[in-house]
């Protein structure tokens, strides 16, 4: 343990001291990168390059761990720093313009590590959280299923108890980067005779094992980032169960919360000013510039609207984060940020596509407007992944504004009796 670390939990390191320490480490050890170099989205289809980046991310995470800069808001007992959201914000500021371990953040640190921290046994936390913070374990969410969509509690993946272990069968989907990740946090059905939300249990399992088959999915833009897993008789020791048997939805509710909070999470590092590529106002501007229409009033209107949206989404995330932390807003208010993010990203992608004009349809390699048409194909992804914007609207109207819940056919009946497809005529 380095001498820089404060020794009592009552005596938090001051933000100024923390900033100085973070700055000196980052500038002394990490590489400066251009905004374009660091992209939230994973555009590269070069597997070797992708693996090299993953390896570098693990390496940086280990360096951060050794410098007492990993897991700012994780307790020190599990390898974190036991500091505050304000410290995390300082770290985000100091990382601006520098390489950072992107692939360790989401979903490894949150929701996965956040869920383990909240629901894991002492043994599980000691085993996994330090390993995560050292960059040794990258995690995926085994949550969505091909049959489920937004209805994640309708999971069909089944876990059957066999003494001190469980046997899992089923399929999970939309895990980004499962092919280079280590562990999955898996929601499975353990009781078909209970109503939907009362027969679920959460497990942890290594992804790379003979009984888990990882398929890569090609998206309409050519990306092969997402995966689908097929689990056949996967054995999970009962010691790797997270939370109580059949009470997986207690875990799941918080899991969803962490997922909706990702835009303002205390567990995730996101350098200030990070380029989000096709989701940035800057690309709307760059395309107009390259097309020679920077003086066109319509093009400028698009640029300004995009800039407005990207500023306001952050301001909203700040407000909602503050509201939830201070107890003035319910956890469910996180849906507001999710909804804004989804709708605004769709809009910005459209603005970029329109500024590209005919170059949105056909382009030469290397053009600034290249991909704006392809990005337009994937426009709705931001309103689908992580729970659709429709789900967010349900959550906001029902759970925040208190409006009547939708009528449900899957409540208070055993899950095995819930209709799962169009009835076949006999």
């Amino acid at each position: 343990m380095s001498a820089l670390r404060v020794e009592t939990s009552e005596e938090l390191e001051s933000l100024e001291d923390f900033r100085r320490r973070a700055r000196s480490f980052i500038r002394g050890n990490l590489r400066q990168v251009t905004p374009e170099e660091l992209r939230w989205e994973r555009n590269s289809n070069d597997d070797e390059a992708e693996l090299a980046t993953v390896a570098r991310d693990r390496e940086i995470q280990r360096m951060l761990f050794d410098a007492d800069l990993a897991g700012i808001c994780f307790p020190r007992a599990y390898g974190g720093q036991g500091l505050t959201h304000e410290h995390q914000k300082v770290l985000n500021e100091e990382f601006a313009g520098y390489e950072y371990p992107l692939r360790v953040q989401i979903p490894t640190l949150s929701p996965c590590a956040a869920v383990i921290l909240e629901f894991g046994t002492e043994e599980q936390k000691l085993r996994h959280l330090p390993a995560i913070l050292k960059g040794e374990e990258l995690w995926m969410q085994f949550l969505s299923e091909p049959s489920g969509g937004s209805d994640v509690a309708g999971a069909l993946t089944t876990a059957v108890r066999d003494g001190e272990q469980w046997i899992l069968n089923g399929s999970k989907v939309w895990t980004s980067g499962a092919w280079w990740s280590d562990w999955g946090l898996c929601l499975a059905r353990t009781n078909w005779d209970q109503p939907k939300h009362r027969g679920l249990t959460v497990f942890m399992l290594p992804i790379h094992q003979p009984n888990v088959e990882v398929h890569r999915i090609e998206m309409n833009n050519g990306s092969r980032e997402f995966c689908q897993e097929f689990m056949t008789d996967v054995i999970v020791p009962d010691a790797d169960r997270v939370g109580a048997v059949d009470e997986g939805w207690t875990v799941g509710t918080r899991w969803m919360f962490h997922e909706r909070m990702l835009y303002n999470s205390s567990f995730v590092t996101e350098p200030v000013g990070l380029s989000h590529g096709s989701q940035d106002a800057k690309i709307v501007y760059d395309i107009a510039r390259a097309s020679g229409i920077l003086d066109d009033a319509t093009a400028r209107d698009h640029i300004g609207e995009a800039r407005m949206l990207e500023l306001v989404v952050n301001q909203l995330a700040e407000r909602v984060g503050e509201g939830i932390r201070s107890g003035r807003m319910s956890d469910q208010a996180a849906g507001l940020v999710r909804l804004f993010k989804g709708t605004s990203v769709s809009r910005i992608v459209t603005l970029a596509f329109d500024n590209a004009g005919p170059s949105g349809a056909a382009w030469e390699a290397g053009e600034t407007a290249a991909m704006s048409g392809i990005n337009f194909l994937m426009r709705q992804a931001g309103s689908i992944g992580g729970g659709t914007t429709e789900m967010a609207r349900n959550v906001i109207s029902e759970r925040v504004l208190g409006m009547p819940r939708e009528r449900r056919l899957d409540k208070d009946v055993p899950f095995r009796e819930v209709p799962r497809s169009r009835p076949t005529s006999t």
Partner: protein
Amino acid sequence: MLLNLTEDQEFFRETTDRFLTEQVAPDALRQLRDDPIGYDPTYWRRGAELGWTSLLVSEEHGGGTISDSGLADAGLVAYEFGRHAAPGPLSVVNVVAAALSQHNAAPDVLAGLLSGERIATWCAPPFGSTRWEPTVAAVASGTDLVLDGEARIVESAGRADDLLVTCNDGDGVTQLLVPATTPGISVAPMLTVDLTRRFDTVNFDGATVPASAVIGTAGDARADVHRQFELLIALLNAESVGAMQAAFDMTVEWAFDRYSFGRPLASYQALKHRFADMFMWLQSSHATSDAAIAAVAAGDPDSAELVSAAKAYIGEYGAELVQDCTQMHGGIGVTFEHNLHLFLRRVTVNRALAGTPEDHHQRLAAFIDAREGTAA
């Protein structure tokens, strides 16, 4: 409005809220429809006693703040003005008071603004999508200045004792504080959307004022005008957010109370989803208004950009929200009898003043030009 107010701020906000609830209930507002001034001078004086005009004025000039940010405090008053669709030239009086205090000028006028005895307004240049230029010329004549030209859409000029006039003096921008009774100045009322706010054209036809009327530095007032626009827009935004909040709260209540086809409106998913969008616009408007206020108060280098983002967003989604509230109400929502239009008027006027959403989009693009070194 800020999520976490200090105790003093909360007390201050509540005091204004209570006062407005008593003094300017919706029926009282309807009665002011044809009033030439749009408010009762006693009401304004009592509001000034509550501190409405003192928050952007330094303590040495008789002002003072509630928290460590006078603009955040003034934003609370503006927010309550919006929530009550309250009458009175709140934003322009505060802008002029701030300018006089900043330049240590016209102590008698400033004292009158603080006590609520006097009203001053700002003959501002029209706010364009890329730049603004004064429409009033000031030409030197001996030691005097002679003003010619016209300022349009000047709030409460018909009631104002003093006018802060932004002029072009041939060398640059000069601001003058001029008594409204100066020979050569004529004020003509305009028609407007709002029930209680009043706007006028102010004509200058050889109005002669002494050089001592200059506020700030003659020929070098551009930065002052920028600052005034930032303050004005910050207050208009806060007011619009208050009006959005009032309209939204009223419409949520309605959705629970109103039954159609045997169910409350609030039970229809098609409507619930629209309420979710409206609530997101409302919370985003709170957030962006507060962020702009904080940046202006702190003098941050990006304050103008944040002000434009907030004005564009609140201009667009403030009006969308209240129009959607109107839609949710059905026919009753477009009647004079219903209170909803009081708030619709407020966001409508504020959307059009000091730059439309499209104007501010253009401005936001210009901030990127500046960063990229590609001034268009």
